[in-house]
């Protein structure tokens, strides 16, 4: 057997819907029934189980390590350390190569991988890990992000110096208008560490091939970027690794960094046996990066009538021990530090630092999420200081098409923010509290109130997110489309390396192929590296980028098909499986023109080019696209106990063009829920560099009783640069729901609330 059980196969896309329809997704029913094959379900005969020894300390030297006892255990096939890494000893995103595959003489965060074991059974592997003896020299962890950024005497965390990135933004001249401000408001805001909390833990299978290479089956977000790191570390060329995306149980950025890929590869190459690695829930909390915690200091000066004259901002982001996505997180926070507001004078200083706190990197909306909580809190504060309501103060300062961002980049596409706010304000309010069912009340079935102490509040939030990669990065996507007659019916095979992480991408790919080729039957090839890169399933970019690539490849197939129609027609289109001439009507069925042939075209799709941020001023046309979402939150707060029930979240979002309404609404619901989680419950609690709640018992994510029904208003103002005019949609709602919920809690309680997640004790102190 060379193919594992439950490995991905070609799937026929269900339904017959094209662009704008909502065909069902192929994985939906399977997931609901518990039958979907996730990467943790892979199995192959003769496989061994890999396991990872991790550091209990956030900062320590490894004085000595003895693997002898572990290696001698029955059923143990290999025990590997950094000495056994075949190639480069470090990996890392963005060519930083600063993260050891396995710790080399020291550890820099709790949970850092130190050694690997391959054994016949996971329980034997677990015991072997316990048998590895390490003599530690435990050091005081470096956990003070502020000192890491500003104190030159603070010890260095790793070889790369602090800060990992400092990015200033200078627009206009803050000093020149400081004196003219009639109203000045200041605030210091904090965002705790949020986790992606995907349900499918890191897992996969590495199968050694006879030619010395590897077949890798993993759940990831961007396999080609994985390969750029895996190959050099394993001492293999790209051609020697065949990578297949396996069932991904959620990602949200947490799979941009490598987890078990190189480790499983090392064990497979060493033992010559297939290696399966599956993290458990606790290990998963240490197996991926989290959202950067942030400390943010804001000062806005404005006229008495609410017009902002200047913004003076400092944003401090703690990335933990290694670079991961910190450079880009800093870029987003810096460029979007004051959000979608037209502020004539802006000074933003953004720092990303190394510490021994938990490693942080990509998570849905990164950089922009943290800043959004601060700038939206500031808008409410400014409104209150000027006696202007939250919607109006935002409308007064709203950016729009043609106005510049803080980076000087002119907003080129429609951005009807003021109108969207008006729309949000005018939505009908939810019904008043019905206290007859305790599940409607804060505390729910836990019966903390029968209505006593409950006050209602309303708040607004607006978030602006860059879509696709920014700062000059060409994150192209590739698609291969093959049109042939199968069983008498014209069928398109769509092949990309794009990661379906649960967002519904493969459904959208099929819709686009149907629309562009005028057919119904579409088959999706498993995502693998048999085709060039599709870029990452992040930055809300796949419908835009891989959708764009599929569209472009389909257009090329269409042109080739038309070239085979005799008569040199120039007015052809594909409709209902037929080749149609505008002047002469139906000419032929696609099947008749194709015959036994297949037409296969591979195309690369690029977004509009962007520039970097100037190192001193942050100026530049840095973003490829912008997505905007407005939230209105209505909450009931038990002000005596500090418990919150979000009653309703209404969202107004501009998506340019609705490709699949069902999936889109799912993205808005999900992004909103994740933002709600950050507002009121989700936090990795850290003390002295150690995680105190690595479990779903104590890292809480919203349940169905926490996430309220949503009212959605979806707008379609096309972005002229994007395929179909669409805008990425997954991240903007994650930004705006957090500040909207917190604003509503402030409205109910009258408290200042400068930190998320808001905890009950913050509301009762």
């Amino acid at each position, binding site marked *: 057997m060379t193919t594992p059980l439950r490995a991905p196969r070609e799937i026929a896309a269900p339904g017959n819907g094209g662009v704008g329809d909502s065909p069902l997704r192929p994985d939906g029913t399977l997931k609901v029934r518990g039958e979907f094959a996730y990467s943790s379900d892979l199995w192959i005969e003769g496989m061994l189980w890999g396991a990872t020894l991790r550091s209990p300390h956030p900062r320590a030297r490894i004085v000595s390590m003895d693997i002898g006892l572990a290696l001698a255990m029955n059923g143990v096939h290999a025990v590997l350390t950094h000495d056994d890494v075949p190639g480069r000893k470090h990996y890392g995103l963005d060519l930083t190569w600063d993260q050891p595959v396995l710790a080399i003489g020291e550890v820099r965060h709790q949970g850092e991988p130190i050694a690997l074991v391959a054994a016949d059974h996971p329980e034997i592997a677990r015991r072997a890990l316990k048998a590895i003896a390490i003599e530690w020299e435990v050091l005081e962890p470096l956990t003070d992000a502020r000192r890491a950024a500003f104190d030159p005497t603070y010890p260095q965390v790793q070889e790369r110096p602090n800060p990992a990135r400092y990015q200033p933004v200078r627009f206009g001249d803050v000093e020149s208008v400081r004196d003219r401000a009639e109203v000045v408001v200041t605030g210091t805001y904090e965002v705790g560490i949020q986790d992606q909390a995907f349900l499918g833990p890191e897992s996969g299978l590495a199968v050694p091939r006879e030619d010395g290479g590897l077949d890798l089956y993993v759940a990831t977000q961007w396999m080609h970027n994985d390969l750029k790191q895996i190959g050099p570390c394993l001492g293999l060329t790209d051609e020697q690794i065949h990578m297949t995306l396996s069932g991904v149980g959620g990602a949200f950025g947490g799979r941009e960094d490598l987890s078990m890929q190189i480790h499983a590869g090392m064990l497979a190459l060493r033992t010559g046996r297939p290696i399966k690695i599956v993290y458990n829930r606790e290990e998963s909390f240490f197996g991926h990066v989290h959202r950067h915690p942030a400390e943010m200091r804001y000062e806005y000066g404005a006229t008495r009538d609410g017009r902002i004259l200047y913004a003076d901002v400092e944003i401090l982001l703690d990335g933990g021990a290694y670079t991961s996505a910190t450079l880009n997180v800093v870029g987003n926070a810096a460029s979007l530090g004051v959000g979608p507001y037209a502020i004539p004078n802006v000074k933003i200083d953004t720092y990303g630092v190394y510490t021994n706190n938990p490693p942080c990197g990509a998570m849905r909306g990164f950089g922009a999420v943290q800043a959004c909580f601060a700038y939206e809190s500031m808008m409410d504060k400014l409104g209150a200081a000027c006696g202007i309501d939250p919607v109006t103060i935002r409308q007064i300062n709203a950016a729009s098409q043609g106005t510049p961002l803080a980076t000087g980049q002119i907003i080129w596409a429609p951005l009807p923010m003021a109108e969207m706010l008006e729309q949000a304000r005018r939505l009908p309010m939810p019904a008043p509290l019905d206290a007859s069912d305790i599940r409607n009340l804060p505390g729910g*079935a*836990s*019966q903390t109130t029968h209505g006593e102490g409950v006050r209602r509040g309303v708040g607004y939030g607006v978030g602006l997110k860059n879509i696709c990669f920014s700062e000059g990065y060409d994150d192209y996507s590739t698609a291969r489309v093959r049109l042939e007659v199968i069983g008498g019916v014209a069928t398109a095979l769509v092949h990309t390396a794009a990661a379906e992480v649960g967002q519904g991408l493969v459904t959208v790919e099929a819709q686009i192929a149907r629309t562009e080729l005028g057919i119904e039957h579409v088959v999706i090839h498993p995502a693998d590296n048999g085709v060039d890169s599709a870029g990452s399933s992040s930055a809300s970019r796949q419908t835009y980028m891989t959708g764009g690539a599929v569209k472009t490849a389909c257009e090329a197939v269409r042109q080739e098909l038309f070239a085979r129609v005799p008569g040199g027609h120039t007015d052809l289109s594909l409709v209902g499986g037929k080749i149609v001439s505008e002047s002469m009507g139906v000419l032929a069925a696609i099947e008749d023109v194709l015959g036994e042939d297949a037409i296969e075209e591979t195309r690369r799709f690029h977004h509009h080019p962007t520039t970097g941020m100037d190192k001193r001023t942050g100026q530049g046309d840095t973003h490829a696209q912008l997505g905007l979402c407005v939230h209105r939150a209505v909450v009931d707060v038990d002000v005596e106990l500090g418990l919150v029930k979000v009653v309703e979240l209404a969202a107004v979002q501009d998506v340019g063009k609705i490709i699949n309404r069902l999936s889109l609404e799912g993205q808005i619901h999900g992004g909103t829920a994740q933002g709600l989680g950050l507002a009121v*419950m989700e936090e990795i609690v850290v003390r002295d560099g150690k995680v105190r709640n690595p479990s779903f018992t104590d890292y809480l994510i919203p349940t169905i009783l926490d996430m309220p029904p949503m009212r959605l208003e979806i707008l379609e103002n096309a972005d002229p640069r994007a395929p179909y005019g669409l805008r990425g949609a997954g991240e903007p709602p994650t930004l705006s729901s957090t500040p909207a919920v917190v604003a509503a809690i402030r409205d109910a309680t009258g408290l200042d609330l400068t930190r998320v997640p808001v905890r009950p004790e913050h509301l009762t102190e």
Partner: protein
Amino acid sequence: MKAGTPGAVPIQGGTDVMVEINFDVHRPAALLDLNQVPELFTWERIDGSYRVGAGVPYVQIIAELGHELPGLAQAARTVGSPQIRNRGTVGGNLGAASPAGDSHPPLLAGDAIIEVASAAGTRMIPAHEFYLGVKKSALRPDELIRAFWMKPADGPQYFSKVGTRNAMVIAVCSFAVALHPSERRVGTGIGSAAPTPRRALEAEAFLAESLDWEARMDPEVLRRFGELVAAAASPIDDVRGTADYRRHALAVMARRTLTWAWNDYRKVRAA
């Protein structure tokens, strides 16, 4: 069997034991599967008391004993998810003896008695003598929990639990109150705010002395009751909440639950 292998961990629903095994917290020498003992799955009424087998799951307590043991049924409703309530049992809660177990406060407030059995015979342990320390109970290594005994509610009972999520949450702290009008007495139980579940004894004594069972609730009595309940706790700061917040929340829950119970009691008398 338990006497022969005292290290064996009894398992019923597995909602606690299996989690600890999966996460490598405990690796017991043996598991003793109680699911093969049908007697544990039944409840019966004997001499005016309910004897509820240790294996009766929460879902059955909610469905079948909600009227007779309302405080416990309310607590059962707050346990985990529907799947957990299908499997989890009061017996398991007692076996784990976690201060955060949801059953404990209503068992304390309702004067439950725990029936434990061994090869040597049966012991009846009042709930308030059962909890000895963090996850330590009066259960001896050779004993198993057979059942708990509780009298049907002779007055209104309420359970209230603070968590930072509106469902599926472990208690930050919890409180149960049970009015015993025939004895002119109020029972209490505090959860997750001390090394063990415990009664607020001074608060109970205060009510026994100060409560006028013929009158409306005196706000001053209510306030003092809340204070005494909070004072009865010895909470800690942990990842789920601070000690100060727990004391504060207990006072609020104590006042609210007593008010609800009192209003019910007055309504019944008025009717």
